């Protein structure tokens, strides 16, 4: 389960990074030959937003987000486990409240208002959809992390 999710995430991140770099380079190049390529700016920013959200989801999976772990290192093994589970529960709370409910509502409102991007005229709701979708991935990862923690002898 985790392996499949990791693999999908990694491929997505690789594709998005390449897209982000190429469209930014195209912009520099287009400007030097006076070509109008305004869409590149939007494309670059959108791919960065997706890299941020999906990269974050992946980072939650491998517990790479910056945290202050003084408390944990001062606890015994049993309490360390409890604390790790508690932290995952807080992450789930964040994911459900902010990314799934908040992000979901935000996407819905943006679609309803019919907001489109300035140059490419993409409905912005599609871009923002990364909020709830990455939220779902984080939810999976957090549940998997809790299971791993509980299984740990």
């Amino acid at each position, binding site marked *: 389960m985790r392996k499949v999710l990791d693999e999908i995430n*990694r491929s997505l*991140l*690789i594709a*998005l*990074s*390449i897209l*982000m*770099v190429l469209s*930014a*380079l195209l*912009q*520099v190049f287009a400007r030097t030959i006076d070509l109008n390529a305004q869409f590149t*700016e939007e494309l*670059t*920013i959108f791919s*960065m*937003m997706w*890299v*941020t*959200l*999906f*990269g*974050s989801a*992946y*980072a*939650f999976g*491998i517990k*790479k*987000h*910056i*945290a*202050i*772990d*003084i*408390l*944990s290192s001062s606890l015994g093994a049993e309490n360390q486990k409890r*604390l790790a589970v*508690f*932290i995952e529960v*807080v*992450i789930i*709370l*964040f994911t459900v*409240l*902010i*990314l799934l*409910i*908040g*992000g979901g*509502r*935000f996407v819905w*409102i943006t679609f309803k208002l019919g907001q489109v991007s300035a140059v490419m005229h993409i409905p912005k709701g599609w871009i*923002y959809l990364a*909020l709830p979708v990455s939220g779902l991935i984080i939810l999976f990862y957090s549940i998997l992390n809790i299971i791993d923690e509980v299984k740990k002898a």
Partner: protein
Amino acid sequence: MDYVEIIILALSFFLLISAGVPITVSLALSSFFTLVLTVIFEASVTTVAQRMINGIDSFTLLAIPFFILAGQIMNSGGIAVRLIDFAKTLVGPLRGGLLSVNILACMLFGAISGSAAAAASAIGSILTNKMEKEGYDKGFTTAVNVTSATTGLLIPPSNVLIVYSLAAGGLSIGALFLAGYIPGILISIVLIIISYVYARKKNYPKGEFWSGSELLRTFVRAFPSLLLLVVVMGGIVMGYFTATEAAAVAVLYTFLLALVYRELSWEKLKKILVDSSITTAIVLLLVATSSSMSWVMSYGNLPQSITAGLLSLTENPIMILIMINIILLLVGVFMDITPAILIFTPIFLPVVQSIGIDPIHFGIIMVLNLCIGLCTPPVGNLLFVGATVANIPFQKVLKYLIPLYIGMIAVLILITLWPQLSLWLPELVGY
């Protein structure tokens, strides 16, 4: 903002981060807890999500992922070895010359790769064994390696300065970059002096003396990497491209360089792209969530309250700068530099601007200050990286760090009191 709200915001944030909850999550949740006191639930969650996405909807911000990626590509190369060889011909003949070589190489590597941790690990892992063989004290060499790695955060291109520019509401990145040179180089010089004094006391060996042609040869080998610094800064300062475009060009340049040196395979490239995406995401999610927190703070006029509160204590600019510096030093002990900049810039910048401090100058003070915290436990990324590559428990490094901390704090005081050290270069170029 009511006192109740300030207390809820500060307390919930503090409790969450001390429990070890990721800082991003703590920022978003404490913003939500504060907002939901006055705004209905649906609007609160939606606002936090919306502020998060708005926080990363920025073209300037793109410089960060590109510099991270360029740095990662650089790391995979033999560039550390080339920079060390070049530094050796310059400062190697000094008493305890390898320490100075470490400092200079760390500064160059940190500037090029944009990552202090990468500098400490790349340069440290090559030099530690060599220095140990020549009788250098491992605790001191690690301390020097760790502190000198911070200079890469001041010398451009530097992602933490870009983060500060954003947190300050969009300062000129070119001006900030230029402002970082002199303070960064000053730190290196002070560290070299301290190492030299220590080396004389311990009678460490001198390195051999290199001829002019050797110097030229090592320079030519290091030149392609050093050229990157010139291209990026030259391009930005001459107004040829924006910081973001410069960063994208840096990616292309390092990529081509790695191809020429035959250091890149598709497998390696895939790993680099994934790793740099994760680093990018960690930094930018902090930017996103802290922008929701700073929105909540300014929604409740918190920065104005803090400004008024601090100014009621004293209106003496020097006293205020000293107070802020002490608070930031304490913050740096417990918090990594990027979240600290994102959280405390919106709080302190209005204060210092109201007493006439230039925001560019304040940015350099803040970054230099928080750099010291990177080398202190209990939260000191650089210290842990440095100790790990040297294979020594970090507790054994602490006593050797003390003279170096003192040197860095001396530079901090100098930079704080003498604005021209930061502002002279940007003004010279016309910012």
